[in-house]
């Protein structure tokens, strides 16, 4: 027990000097929502595991809950520091820190390169700001009245800094500013959900195809080649149509906690799901290719010789080595889904009346432009918000890709 505790030394803050000092500090300052998310997700997940373990081991002095909880706190704190660019040490699930003489690992190296990239830091700050807005809008702290139409204030111009119309109003008196802010939360949900779904499907199928080869590979490759050959837009429109017109599904969804907790309509939720279900082929292809390369390497053979179960080899040994591909695909799918929502809303699937999303705002704006004088603000607000988010992710992905590419080391 004492030994275990002695190893938990707090990470020492790395002094930030040189050209990127100010940026780093700002990045650290605004990264708290990301850190918060990390702690919530990581903490929650780990807590469950710990309780399961605590039940199993009872009150064993070293493996029981109290020690585990302490490690968990260490881990959460370190995770927050790591995401906030306050420390370069990668947090580990068991709460320990890197010991002197231990290797830094590829993620650490990548991160050091990332931190030197000023474009990446700016993009990171932008992302964190968007996340703050998203969290605040989802929690209802800001943009509360986005769905309320005020018939007395139709097409107010921006610069009308009274009441909720801080960026003008639309054709039935919705506040454009509030809708744009609420749209941030919606866009973050769209991107995250769609990307998570496709990364899960693509990652798992790609891993299986690449690792097992033979008929498993043939089957999965056939499946994604086929899916890729069907025009995606028609697939999405058809599937969204089916989900939307299914009465039973609608009732189930409206009664479920999803509707309550997310505040997304079934139409929107269905396109998120459908985008996720159709866009996993790219991830699958990449993961498969990397798995084929990795499966014959020595460490896999060694693990197999030691009798490690196949499932464990795939997900614990090999998967961390392809994680960087998944991470990059995740970011690209994230923006892909957000941009796709605009097109789908234009086609009339997805967002339902009373819902605020950037796609809907842009779609509505085509009516605004027809009238004289020009009602430019709705289009501008939605486009600017979407542009900022997509640009930040794009630039960050570029930097991330460079940082993760070991060939750039020289």
């Amino acid at each position, binding site marked *: 027990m004492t030994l275990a505790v002695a190893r938990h030394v707090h990470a020492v803050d790395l002094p930030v000097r040189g050209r990127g000092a100010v940026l780093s500090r700002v990045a650290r300052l605004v990264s708290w929502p990301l850190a918060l998310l990390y702690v919530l997700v990581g903490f929650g997940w780990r807590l469950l595991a710990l309780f399961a373990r605590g039940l199993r081991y009872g009150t064993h002095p070293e493996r029981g809950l109290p020690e585990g909880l302490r490690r968990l706190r260490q881990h959460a704190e370190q995770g927050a520091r790591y995401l906030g660019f306050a420390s370069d040490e990668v947090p580990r699930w068991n709460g320990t820190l890197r010991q002197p003489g231990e290797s830094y690992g590829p993620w650490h190296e990548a991160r050091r390169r990332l931190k030197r990239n000023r*474009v990446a830091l700016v993009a990171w700050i932008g992302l964190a700001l968007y996340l703050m807005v998203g969290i605040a809008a989802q929690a209802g702290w800001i943009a509360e009245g986005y769905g309320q139409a005020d018939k007395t204030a139709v097409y107010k111009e921006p610069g009308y800094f009274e009441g909720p119309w801080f960026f003008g109003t639309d054709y039935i008196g919705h506040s454009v500013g509030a809708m744009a802010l609420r749209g941030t939360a919606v866009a973050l949900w769209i991107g995250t959900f769609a990307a998570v779904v496709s990364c899960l499907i693509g990652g798992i199928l790609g891993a299986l195809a690449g690792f097992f080869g033979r008929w498993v590979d043939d089957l999965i490759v*056939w*499946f994604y*080649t*086929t*899916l*890729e*050959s*069907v*025009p995606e*837009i*028609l*697939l999405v*429109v*058809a*599937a969204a*149509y*089916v989900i939307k017109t299914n009465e039973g599904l609608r009732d189930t969804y409206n009664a479920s906690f999803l509707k309550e907790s997310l505040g997304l309509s079934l139409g929107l939720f269905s396109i998120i799901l459908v985008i996720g279900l159709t866009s996993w082929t790219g991830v699958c292809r990449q993961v498969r290719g990397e798995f084929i390369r990795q499966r014959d390497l020595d460490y896999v053979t060694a693990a197999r010789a030691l009798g490690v179960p196949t499932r464990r080899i795939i997900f614990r040994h090999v998967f961390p080595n392809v994680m960087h591909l998944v991470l990059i695909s995740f970011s690209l799918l994230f*923006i892909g889904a957000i*941009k796709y929502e*605009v*097109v789908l809303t*234009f*086609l*009339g699937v997805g967002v339902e009346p009373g819902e605020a999303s*950037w*796609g809907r705002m*842009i*779609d509505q*704006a*085509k009516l605004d*432009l027809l009238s004289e004088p*020009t009602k430019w603000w709705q*289009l501008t607000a*939605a*486009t600017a918000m*979407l*542009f900022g988010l*997509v*640009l930040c992710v*794009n*630039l960050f992905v*570029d930097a991330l890709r460079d940082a993760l590419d070991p*060939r750039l080391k020289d």
Partner: protein
Amino acid sequence: MGFYILRRLLHAIPVLLGVTLITFVLFHVVCPNAAEILVGTKGGTGEEIKARIAKESARLGTDQPLTVQYGRFLNELVHWDFGQSWRLQKGRDVIDMLGDGVGPSLMLAVPAFLIELLLAVSLALFCAYYRNSVADITTVIVTVAMMSVPALSYILFGQYFLAHTWNMFPVFGYQPGLAGLATLALPILIWVALALGGEVRFYRTVMLEEMRKDYVRTAASKGLSTKRILFKHVFKNGMIPLITRVIVTVPFLMLGSLLIERFFGIPGLGSMTIDAVNQNDLPVIKAMVVISAILLVVFNLITDLCYALVDPRVRLK
């Protein structure tokens, strides 16, 4: 090589079968009985409509079991028979309609794609030459920023401000032939702005990847200038991914772009797809899905063959 081609051809068969299966299932789920849509709900009493639906079902074969319907679908496909349009141009053969749509789509897509390709490759070479300089980073950021604006916003802004308010372009319309280029200028501009970022990024990576190879170091140690290495050696090797990418893009050029065609009134396949989706013109959608899948499969095959032709290592795998 002959064996390789044969194997690749055999690979294409299950994919095509899979596509037809997906299409069939999808359409069956969206619209279990096409006769109901075709007959509609107006014109006569309930009994009459029911009788008409039954008659129409018998004609279309939708009262048969699913396996029979699928067989029928495959049979029509093999005979290259996609039926007649229901709504868009009622009674006209779908295949003729699609044939008419390809021209306008290509009129927009081909010049746009060529301009985009030319710009992207030159910018990529520029970036590779001045890599990691301010010029390189700025170019990448600007093109990526251009890519990050949603297409719909480009179209609305362009149509309203550039064309309508400032009269720089015609707002709308399409004419076949060279006279149409004036109306196509704005759509082409938007297309290039949308696509440039991704392309520049891709070709820049390709060039940089090539530049890290051993032969470049050999050439440099031989005393060749950077310019010569870049334009003579790296560029030539970079042509392989370039050609592959171009061939893969061809079917998408033929299928057209949904939004741009729609907003600028270009009667291509993209706007036809949107109209068909909006008006539930199932035969048109079905034909679009199947034909585009065939195009994709065929061009993928051509890409692979070209690749195998250029790089003998691929054939042996």
